[in-house]
């Protein structure tokens, strides 16, 4: 996991406890959470420009989905893409630079929060247009199929993207060309402020089945369980060169973007939000590993501090 060219990650690995380093998937879970919290704070304080779409609450999906990918596999993401980037092994320092608009960023500071990529690592970019990366993933996958490389392409999309025409076209393309592509639909229950079940009559995984694609429906309730399932999904996609659709039922603990203002009548369902907040998946995973909640919070705070301090120092320079 250690990447010597990743200065911030190296600093983090110096300070986190050994129980965390011994569990790389949990480490990634905490790394994503801390990074998102740091970016949120930096956005609110004006250090980072523009909207920041946080994946706080959805970390299990990114880690479980990407854990079985090889370095030679490909991943494409959406506007809520920091977690996917880190889960696939993207360089944290370059991610921070990117959000600061620094030319040392992973996209030379030209993309920003919604457009992070590390092309040489198979991270082919996140996307500001909902659903637009999905057909691109089909093309990447078709290229690998023609080359006969055996590589798998994974693309993340949200529940909102499932009502984009181009996503329906892409599911069909993947099916007719038998592409080794995995569609990971993160159903976080809201497309911006709109409840997904207000906008869609049937389940997303059923839609994928309707295109002739094998579909799996998962809850974000257990990292270990999801890691095992995703390992099988990735392996099967690779071996059979067939598409797979995975719907993850999850929840966005933060608002659509970090600086979004709550309206007089809030769109969030209060009971659901409270229930989900009380059952934070990152805390749950730490507790299941035998750590107490405060220890988990302390590690997250410490990692967040390292990232925030690094960013603030960069800006002062």
């Amino acid at each position: 996991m250690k990447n010597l060219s990743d200065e911030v990650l190296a600093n983090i690995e110096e300070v986190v406890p050994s129980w965390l380093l011994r569990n790389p998937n949990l480490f990634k879970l905490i790394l994503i959470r801390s990074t998102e919290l740091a970016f949120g704070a930096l956005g609110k304080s004006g250090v980072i420009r523009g909207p920041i779409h946080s994946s706080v609450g959805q970390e299990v999906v990114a880690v479980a989905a990407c854990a079985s990918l090889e370095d030679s596999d490909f991943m494409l993401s959406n506007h809520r893409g920091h977690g996917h980037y880190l889960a696939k092994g993207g360089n944290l320092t370059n991610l921070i630079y990117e959000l600061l608009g620094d030319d040392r960023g992973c996209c030379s500071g030209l993309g920003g929060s919604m457009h992070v990529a590390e092309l040489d690592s198979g991270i082919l970019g996140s996307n500001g247009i909902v659903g637009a990366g999905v057909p691109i993933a089909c093309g990447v996958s078709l290229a690998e199929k023609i080359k006969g490389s055996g590589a798998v392409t994974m693309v993340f999309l949200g529940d909102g993207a499932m009502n984009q025409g181009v996503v329906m076209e892409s599911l069909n393309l993947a099916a007719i060309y038998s592409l080794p592509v995995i569609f990971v639909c993160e159903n976080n229950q809201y497309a911006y402020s709109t409840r997904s079940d207000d906008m869609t009559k049937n389940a997303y995984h059923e839609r994928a089945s309707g295109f002739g694609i094998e579909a799996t429906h998962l809850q974000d309730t257990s990292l270990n369980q999801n890691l095992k399932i995703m390992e099988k999904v990735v392996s099967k996609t690779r071996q059979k060169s067939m598409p797979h659709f995975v719907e993850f039922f999850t929840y966005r603990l933060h608002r659509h973007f970090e600086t979004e203002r709550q309206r007089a009548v809030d769109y969030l369902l209060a009971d659901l939000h409270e229930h989900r907040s009380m059952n934070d998946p990152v805390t749950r995973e730490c507790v299941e590993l035998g750590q107490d909640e405060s220890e988990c919070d302390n590690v997250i705070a410490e990692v967040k501090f390292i990232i925030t301090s690094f960013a603030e120092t960069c800006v002062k320079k």
Partner: protein
Amino acid sequence: MTYLEILRSAVYALMERDETYLYIGEDVRSGQKGISDGFFSKFGAQRVIDTPISESGFCGMAVGLAVNGFRPIVEFNFSGLMFVCLDQIFNQAFKFKFMTGNKRNVPIIYLMPTGTKGGLAGHHSDNTYATLSHLGVISLMPACKEQIPSVMDYACSANAPVAIFLPVEEFRSDTVYDIADINPFFLRLKCGDDVAIICTGTSISTVNKFFNTASKSIVRRTALYCVSDLNLSIKCLDEIRHLKEKTIVIVDDATEDFGFASQIELEIRRSKQHECPEIYTVCRLSNLVPFREGLEHALRPSAERINEVFLDSGLLGGKA
């Protein structure tokens, strides 16, 4: 050979030369448009890829192929279909390289049959090139068969998304032009000292009809140029800026407002502020193309409308 046959040969040669070229689109295996006729039997299913009627989907797929080692050639049924998939052409293909830090090229060629031979009505008659020019996407339109190989070479060397507009009115044309300097940008098709007609691929046959009916004096004294570089990049602009004629007539079968002809006129006025020539335009009058023959004819540039410009303005004696 016709324009279409030369076009097919040029694409065929590309496919034969380099295995990373893939040919993608609707009905391309059966070669319904004529461009890919015979490609499937020569290059096989892996390189000649029939798609569903999903322009956004297959244009997105082309982006994925292009960023991953291939050079897709995407055939459109007609250029108006770009409106179905503009996000994938502009937001994705065009911006990918820049937004990911200028680290990877996105070599895609879009072949876009454009315009009308008549009778196609509102959905199938559009000339949409100014839309892509406005967005900054490299766009070219070979006006005659002699120009096709140089346009294809330029499109390939760009290593970027390039739209090649193909005027359907020219597909069956076997007109031979004697061109001294064949390039993908600007063609000098005919000499003449007094008036310059600037045409495009969608108006070249109309201008030829005008010459066939015009007086010998007008024909002798009128030069004909053709703009094929739809972005008016510097090589094309240099030619336009150095035109010597004191009267210029721009003929283009697309609408003038916020359009290509207006941009040419603007560039001429910018470059010749003190001795600006008189400029006239003969363009499509509306983007609402009627089916009824007489109405459609009146809307589009025609030999009669070019003649009217000469008559009304008293150009070269005003008699055609």
